[in-house]
């Protein structure tokens, strides 16, 4: 028969065991936050896009990526992906600040193969960038190849392109806090500050 002291000790042991369990939510992964010059080296620099770090419009840390996009086919951002296994995440998100009064239509392309799949075999999505702050989230369950009813292999993401298709004049955009989140945010309101690109259709 267990004494009161025994029960107390057993209770304490149980509490200790429970306390030792990690109840914290898994951490999100920050792909890019543009806080150091070294991050500029990790980008794929191509003609007609000029990158620099800026202290304006930062949403994470103190700096952001200033992209100057010149008239051409698809100027934009092609980051080196430090994390290619996205299977344990729920969303891709990033912030874009548009300092102009113009609304832009941007493109997001995501490949799950290294060998540059054709348009129909990769994720392609167009979305609006309104003047001011834009928080873009892409639920990863929606990453479907444009021309086939095929979900991208989230364990093998090869690259992402964030670009402005055929700008007719020079555009400047600020990008910050490109991250993968473990859980989808609930109750997001679709305002200029909170946009959601939800389906991987061919646009």
């Amino acid at each position, binding site marked *: 028969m267990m004494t009161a002291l025994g029960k107390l000790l057993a209770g304490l042991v149980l509490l200790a065991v429970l306390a030792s369990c990690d109840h914290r939510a898994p951490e999100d992964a920050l792909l890019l936050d543009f806080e150091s010059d070294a991050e500029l080296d990790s980008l794929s*620099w191509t003609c007609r896009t000029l990158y620099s770090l800026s202290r304006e419009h930062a949403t994470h840390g103190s700096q952001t990526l200033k992209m*100057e996009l010149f008239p051409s086919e698809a100027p934009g951002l092609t980051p080196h992906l430090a994390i290619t296994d996205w299977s344990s995440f729920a969303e891709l998100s990033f912030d874009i600040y548009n300092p102009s009064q113009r609304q832009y239509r941007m493109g997001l392309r995501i490949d799950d193969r290294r060998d540059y799949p054709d348009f129909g075999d990769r994720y392609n999505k167009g979305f609006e960038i309104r003047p001011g702050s834009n928080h873009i989230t892409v639920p990863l369950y929606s990453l479907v190849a444009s021309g086939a009813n095929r979900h991208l292999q989230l364990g093998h993401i090869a690259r992402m392109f964030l670009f402005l298709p055929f700008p007719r004049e020079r555009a400047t955009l600020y990008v910050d806090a490109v991250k993968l989140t473990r859980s989808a945010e609930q109750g997001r309101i679709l305002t200029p500050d909170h946009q959601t690109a939800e389906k991987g259709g061919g646009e």
Partner: protein
Amino acid sequence: MTIKGINAWQRGIIALLILLAVYGVLIEPYRVQVHDVPVKDPSLAKVLGQAVVVQLSDLHISSMGPRERRVLKIVGDLRPDIVFLTGDYVAWKGAYGPALDFLSQLHAKIGVWAVMGEYDYSRSRKSCLFCHEEGSASLTRRHQVHFLKDRTEKIRLPQGDLSITGIDGDEEPPAYPSGGDPVPPGERGAVIVLAHCPLNFDRITDDRSLLMLAGDTHGGQIPLPGLLFRKAGYEKNDLYSQGLYERGQRRLFVSRGIGTSHLPVRLLRPPEVVVFHFVP
């Protein structure tokens, strides 16, 4: 008779290998030759028959050393009308300053046209310095080289027009590559195509008169059977190691280049400054 278990034959072979290694590392990579190449092309002969046309390739410059100074001296003495450069000016992830210094000392009466190779993109951010001032969209004033990145320039010369197309050597294609024939179909007459990798020759599908200049292979740097290069993943060295190739009216010249990569050795593949002589 043997000494320490090595007989005379073995000593002879070892001595020969040491001599070859010394020659291949210390001598031949610096024996820059002028390679005169006759090319039969009536259109190019009409437009460039009297011109001194020079090709340099695969410089792989780490510093402005004796080889680079020798090349500049040779090119200066040739007093070229046109210089074509077919990529790989820097070492892999190396410094870009020395290569830019070299380009700034390269001059031709009509102009210098160039494409970039995959080594030039090994530090993507620095690759912009070939065309732009640092941190700026302004074109560089450091040199006079016209870099052609998947585009064509038409040059008006006294004897006719010359079309120069440059196929970019970046192995990372753009987000929406256009694909297809890299030379605009309308380009006829005197047409020169610059490409770093000679495998681009296979991308030109129609039979029209043109000359493609390429490099990239270094001629293998040492003479080995093409099959060995193919097995090592260098199909280009098997198909187009060095020299002139013809397919219908299309011609490809592959320069063995000037610098070295992987190993700093050249054997029977000396660096070359190529001079073209166009004949009808």
